[in-house]
Structure formats: structure tokens, C-alpha cells
């Protein structure tokens, strides 16, 4: 056990407690020892001793880190969020599945001074590595360590295996699952289909960082139709195309989760039905095409690869086309370094451009945003449900 009493600086997390344990009982005992150390004080910026606050109670965060380096990356993100943090974080890394069962845990308390006048706020982090059989039964490791009565969020960085025995055991105890669909291998469509089944199976919410990253795109597209003259065209869309970054034109070589979410969002908001799910084209660079139905009108949808140095699968352009009473509307939203630009033309007459600033969000920002906007997100649920139909 180590105990740090170094002076706190407002807003900067400090590691105040660190110990090791080799069993679940040991971890529980160490967690208890942190908070039973009533004399735990630290030197504040004014040089005075101040009480370190008891843990706060916001949520449990369980991170399934497939590899050790993922665990380390996640730990540094979670440490940085102390103060706007979950109350207890368990980072679980299964290792050496064929070896004997073993358990190794680092138990830490990270604290931060929220302001000069306030006591420190602390959160707990348990870095759990488990080998052999132990790693096959994650729920048995996680359940005893959760703070009861608090929501449980499972963050699954990398490639989640929703159908694995571990996932089937773990997900029923979760209220929410966080993933990043844009990091999945292949085109990501199989992952979407598997993930879309989870809400019904386990009664959980899903937050996909890939969807969160597109918030400013949605704002930009929606704002175009705030203009009373353009709003009626929403009922007359006949083509939606999303262009994404690719290195070569073969289907399956770029993850298309993000471009597909654009189509799914539009379809779900406009009550469009999926008539033909996305299918890859046979020719190189043809991408994926599908068909939506909007009342009696059919809407062609396509995901088109574009050669670009941007990370594979990044949305580059969203194009909408609508025809109404012989008038034609063309909307094009294009990615720029610091945001997106909306251009629209009605019957060939360009309308004023509008730029939306949207710097790329880091994983830490997305995690913080997700934690702070806890609760149901009907939009995300609807988009995911539509996306699942698009990849059937």
C-alpha cells in the first residue's frame, strides 16, 4: 500500500492510494481500507492539510480491455476524468486463457481538487488482470465489486464479442454499453447487426462513439431544413449518398459504420422503411447501395468510397437530393479540417454556405459526454434499429 500526500492542484488528478491484491476478497479489503483511513489528508495549494473527500456515487464503469495496452490507454483516460468521473472503475483484462486461473489487481484512488475551497473528490480504479478460467467468467469477477444501487456502464473498446459466453453473462448486469463501431474490423456491418439485438435481449442502452462523433453533422443537415422554403423538400427526398474515405475500392476494406449511421439517422427521422438493405457493388469503388421507401416514393441510398488520406471510413460528404413540384433541391455537407460546410442549391441557384465548427473529439471527451448525458437516448436507439435493418 502506498499513500501520497503531495499537494493537490485544482483540476489536476493525483494518485492518492495504490495497493495490490491477488483475490476478490483482497480487492474488497483494499477498497475498504482506502475509505476507512479516516486520517487520510493531503496538503492543499495553500499549504494547509485538508480532508480527502469520501468517494462520490455516480456510477460503476466496467471496461473490458482485450489487451493490456488497451487497458493502460483506458486507465489514463479514466484518470483524467476524475472529478467528472464514475465512482468506481473496473478495468478487466483477460490474459493467458489456457493457463491456470489467477488474478492480479491494482487498487487505486485518484483524487482531484474541484476548487480551492472544496475538499478533494476521489474515485476508485481497480485494474484487474485475470488468467485461465477466471477470464472466462467475467461476471463472477465483476459482480461482487460493483457498488450496488448505482448504474453499471460497460465500456467495450476494440472489437466486442457480443455473442461470447462472457458477454452473455456480463451484459445482463449492465444498464448501458459503450462501444466505438468505427474501430471494428471489416466493414463493421456484422457488428451493427449483433449490437442491435442487445437492447431487446438485455434491456440495455447502447452508446456508440461513432454515432456521437457525428452530432455536428446532424446539426448541420437539420439546420438546412430549418428554412421554411426548404422544409417541404424533406418529404420529397429521392437520393441520399454518403462518401467515405477509402484506400482501395474493394468492399469490406473500410469500416462503413459512420457513413451508414448518417443514412440510418435520416431514415429513422423521416419514417422511411428499408426496402432493400445495403449490398456491396461488384465493380471496384462502387461501394454499397440500398433502397428506402418514403410513402409511395422510393429513395436511392448509397455509400460511396472516395480515395482519401483521411482514416478509412471517415465521412467526407453527405449529399441529399429532392424533387418537389418540378423544383430540385441539392444539399451537400462536406467535411473540413475544423468542421463541416453546408452548401445547398435550389433549381441550380446556390444558397449561402454555412459552416459548422466541429473539432474532432477525443475518446476522453466522448466518454465524459456519455457519462454526463446519462439516461435514455431514443434517437440513438432508433438510429441503431434502422441501421440494423440496413445491414440485414
Amino acid at each position: 500500500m502506498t499513500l501520497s500526500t503531495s499537494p493537490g492542484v485544482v483540476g489536476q488528478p493525483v494518485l492518492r492510494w495504490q495497493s495490490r491484491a491477488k483475490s476478490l476478497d483482497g480487492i474488497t479489503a483494499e477498497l475498504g481500507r482506502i475509505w476507512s483511513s479516516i486520517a487520510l489528508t493531503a496538503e492543499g495549494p495553500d499549504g494547509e492539510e485538508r480532508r480527502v473527500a469520501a468517494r462520490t456515487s455516480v456510477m460503476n464503469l466496467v471496461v473490458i480491455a482485450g489487451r493490456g495496452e488497451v487497458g493502460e490507454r483506458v486507465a489514463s483516460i479514466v484518470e483524467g476524468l476524475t472529478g467528472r468521473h464514475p465512482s468506481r472503475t473496473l478495468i478487466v483484462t483477460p490474459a493467458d486463457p489456457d493457463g491456470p486461473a489467477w488474478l492480479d489487481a491494482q487498487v487505486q484512488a485518484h483524487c482531484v481538487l474541484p476548487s480551492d475551497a472544496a475538499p478533494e473528490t476521489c474515485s476508485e480504479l481497480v485494474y484487474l488482470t485475470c488468467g485461465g478460467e477466471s477470464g472466462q467468467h467475467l461476471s463472477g469477477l465483476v459482480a461482487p465489486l460493483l457498488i450496488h444501487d448505482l448504474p453499471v456502464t460497460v465500456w467495450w473498446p476494440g472489437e466486442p464479442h457480443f455473442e461470447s459466453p462472457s458477454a452473455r453473462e456480463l451484459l445482463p448486469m449492465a444498464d448501458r454499453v459503450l462501444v466505438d463501431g468505427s474501430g471494428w474490423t471489416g466493414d463493421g456491418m456484422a457488428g451493427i447487426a449483433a449490437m442491435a439485438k442487445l437492447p431487446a435481449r438485455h434491456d440495455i442502452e447502447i452508446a456508440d462513439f461513432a454515432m456521437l462523433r457525428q452530432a455536428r453533422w446532424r446539426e448541420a443537415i437539420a439546420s438546412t431544413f430549418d428554412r421554411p422554403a426548404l422544409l417541404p423538400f424533406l418529404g420529397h427526398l429521392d437520393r441520399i449518398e454518403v462518401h467515405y474515405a477509402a484506400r482501395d475500392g474493394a468492399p469490406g476494406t473500410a469500416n462503413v459504420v459512420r457513413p451508414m449511421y448518417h443514412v440510418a439517422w435520416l431514415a429513422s427521422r423521416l419514417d422511411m422503411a428499408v426496402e432493400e438493405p445495403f449490398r456491396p457493388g461488384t465493380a471496384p469503388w462502387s461501394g454499397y447501395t440500398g433502397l428506402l421507401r418514403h410513402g409511395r416514393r422510393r429513395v436511392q441510398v448509397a455509400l460511396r468510397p472516395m480515395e482519401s488520406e483521411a482514416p478509412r471510413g471517415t465521412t467526407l460528404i453527405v449529399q441529399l437530393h429532392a424533387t418537389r413540384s418540378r423544383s430540385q433541391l441539392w444539399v451537400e455537407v462536406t467535411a473540413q479540417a475544423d468542421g463541416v460546410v453546408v452548401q445547398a442549391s435550389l433549381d441550380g441557384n446556390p444558397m449561402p454556405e454555412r459552416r459548422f465548427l466541429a473539432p474532432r473529439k477525443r475518446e476522453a471527451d466522448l466518454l465524459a459526454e456519455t457519462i454526463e448525458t446519462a439516461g435514455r437516448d431514443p434517437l440513438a436507439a432508433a438510429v441503431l434499429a434502422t441501421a440494423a435493418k440496413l445491414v440485414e
Partner: protein
Amino acid sequence: MSTKAPVAPQPPRTIREERLARDGKRRRPSHHADVNPLREGLRLERVPDPHVTVLFGATGDLSHRKVFPALAQLWRTNLLPADWALVAIGRRPYDDGTFRMDIAESLHRNCRVQLDEDAERQFLDRVFYHRGDFADDQLYDTLTEKLEGMHLEHDTRSNLLFYLATQPSAFPEIIGQIGRCGLDHEVHAGGWRRAVIEKPFGRDLGSAIRLNREVLKVFRESQVYRIDHYLGKETVRNLLVFRFGNGIFEPLWNRQYVDHVQITVAESLGVEERGAFYEETGAARDVLQNHLLQLLSLVAMEPPATFEADALRDEKLKVLRAIAPPTRQDIAREVVRGQYDKGWVAGVPVKGYRQEPEVDPESETETFVAARFEVDDWRWSGVPFYLRTGKRLAKRASEIAIQFRDVPHRLFAEANTDPQPNLLAIRVQPDEGILLRFGSKVPGLGLDIRPVTMDFTYGTAFSTDAPDAYETLILDAMLGDQSLFTRADEVEAAWSIVTPMLDGWLDTPAPAFPNYAAGSWGPEEADELIQRDGRSWRRL
């Protein structure tokens, strides 16, 4: 409010339309085509329309300390539109370059979170200085020309947000000139015009009515945003969530369970460099008429039917109208004014009010006021509301305290100590949070009861990076959300409570000022005011 995009209401449909739409066999009914369905469920903060902000009084203290830092924070967090510009109007001889340098210094001094170099440059590049005298026609003629050019250059769609951060005496002139130049006229295809007006809004009921009349000659009420920055504070906004988003408190929120309410806005600072302004204002005009009565109305109001601006403001107005204007007898008995003498604050000796710069050595201006009000309605009849505010008090603290009634029966007769009544305290600043006090048995063989507290502090549960009140309010004005701004009738209702008090003081002999030492909790008469009812002020 601006934290989330308002979710567009679901258009009503017939059952058949609903079924066909769900099956994807039919589009949304065309008669609901005025609702943008793409807005439904967007969680992101909305970005205001492109526009030009026209800031009057741009060289003043308020603009430097509050308005520019708030705008810069909105820029930093991408909550201002990319197509945005600001015209700063002032009398001082700046040009764009020198004014931007001046603002940059202010930002470095006053910003909550510093902007990086690029963001600061982009922000300042959108600020343009326009020099002139507020009473000079030429200022507005040249401003009109400049704005026409800016709409073309910055593609701001003829949208204008006027922000009046000047001395209140300049409001009628500026508003009148805006009207003369037709800058208030909203354009058919977009092109909104809004006016943000800083407090104080009038100095008594008559002047408030006159000012409202002048403003409403030019703007419609829906275009006017009267700022009371207290309403933008996170804790004050949370008061609505606390009351109406939790099921366990509202059933207790009435005369059956509440003994009394105390609202305190205490400052440890004196008048600083604002002696001349404060001489004409005083604590009743500066804080009681606006902040304290707004807090009171939020505590006492009925739940609004919806969270729309007018529904909220209608309920607040009902509370203000349920407070009877004080009579001469009420003023003598239930209102206390005070002025600070020299004393010690935070271990430092400080001057008395009459020794402050630009203050009359014989000044009769009150720097403290305490009052007892009753809200005569079904919910609160008989429950006193004690309000107090003052400068140079022992500490800076703003708080709303709901004191519940005592238990009806003393069950623990053997206990050495009686249980204290429950208390709910909502701390507005500093250390924002909520505290609930209840009695607990002291461990041991005896039966001692001791008050303990459940203490929620914002900093320990949420990010400390909460927006400043001005960020919230300026963004709301840009988005056209009037929920947190006071309406003309609210302002007049508040003045109708405070004006008789001010008039009554003028008709009485000069007060025996100074009557409290700096660093204390105000004059002894304030303690007597509440002690007469068998109660005492909370020790903050």
C-alpha cells in the same frame, strides 16, 4: 434553456396515419410540414443562427468582465455560429486593432478557461469597433450602413442581436435610435432582431413602466431579453429540476410542512470602484428588486404546465402578485435597512461605506436590506419569507433555506437534546450544492439526538466546468429562448413591491447610518426582525 435542443413536439396523427407511417407506407401528414423532423431527439446544444451581435457599452466594465469572456467561451466550445460577427460600440478612440488588443487582455484576465492561440485569433477577428456617442444620430446611420455590409461579408442573414450593456440612462435613447433607423424590423425570410437589456430595469415602478413603454414602442415583447444574471446560475436553474424533477420534495413544499423560508445574498466586498453608481442605487434596487424576488418566485411558484418561457414566467408573476405591497406600518416593522461602517473582513481592515470613493460622507444609501414577506396564496398563506442582502457582510454566500416545521409530538422525552426541525438548504454560491439536515441518534446506550446533514456538492458529482451565467443567458438569447429572462409585467410586479418601501424611506427621518460593522451579518434590527417571530437567521 440551451443545454439541449428542444425536442420538437410529435405532430398529432390519426390512428390510421400513425399505422401507415410506422409501416413506412406513408409519409408524415403534409399538414404538419412546419415541424422539422430532423430536429427530433438531437441532444447536442443547438448552434444559434448566423448573426451579428451589436454590443453597446463595449468599452465598459461589464463588457470586459462578463460579456466578452462569455462570448469567448461560447466560441471556444463551438457554440457560436461560424458566420458570426460582433460590432462593439463605445465612445473611446479605438480602432479594430487596438480594441482587439484591449479585449485580448481582458480575456486573459477574466476567462474561465483560456482560449488557445488560434481560437482567440479567430474570435477577435470577428470583433469590429464602431465609435460614437449614443445620443448622436450619425452613430446609428453609419452603424446601419456597416451592418448592411457585414451581412453580405459575413453571411449573417440580417439577424441582429442588440446587447445594451450601458448605463441604464442610455437605454431609451439607444432603443429609440434603433427604431428610428428601422434596425428593429424583422425581415420576412429570416432576419430576426432581438434586444438584450441589462439590469437595473428602471429605478422604481414609474420609471420601469416608462422604460417598458419606450422599449415596446420599438420591439415586441418576444424580441426583448431582460437579463437578471442570477437566473442563469447553475444552482438556480437546478432549483427547477430539484423541485419538479424529484417526486419526494414537492408534496412537502407548502404551508403544511414548511415553517419559513430564508433567502440570503451576502457579499463580503464593498462598493469597490462603483461608489457613484451605488449611491444612486442601494441594496434594495441593486439586489432585492431583482435577484432576491426572482429567487423567491422560483421557490414559491406553482409547477408550470410546460417548460416554455411564458408558462414559467406566468407562474413566477403569480407569486409576485401574491405579495402585498408593504404599507407604512409594514415598512417600519418588517423591513430593515443598514449601511456598513468600517470593520474587518477576512482579517483585513476595511473602510466604512461613507469613506468609499465617490460616496457622499453623509450618504443615506442603504448597503443592507432585510425584509419579511408573505405570499398570500393557497400554498404559502402564513409562511414568512425572510430575505436579506448586504455588502461587506461576514462572507460571500447566497443561499435559499427551507425550514420545515417541527415534529408534532415529542416522542423522545428522555433524550437530552430535542430534535431540530429539518432543513433544506440550496447553496447558490460559493460551493454550489444542496444540504438536507435531519436528526440522528448518537451511537451509545443513551438516547441523544444530534442533527446530521446529507450534503450534495456539485463539484463532487459533476464536472466543475459549469458555464458562467452569462454564457447560458447570452446563448439562450441567441437561440431565442426567453425562459430565463424577465418579462415586462414581472419587472413591474417586482417594482410594485419595492417602490413603496423606497417611498416610505424618503418620508421618514434620516436613518442612523452607519449601523453595522463591516464583517458582521448586518444591523441588530435585522436579527430582531426575525427573532420577533421566534426564529433566527441561519449562520452561513
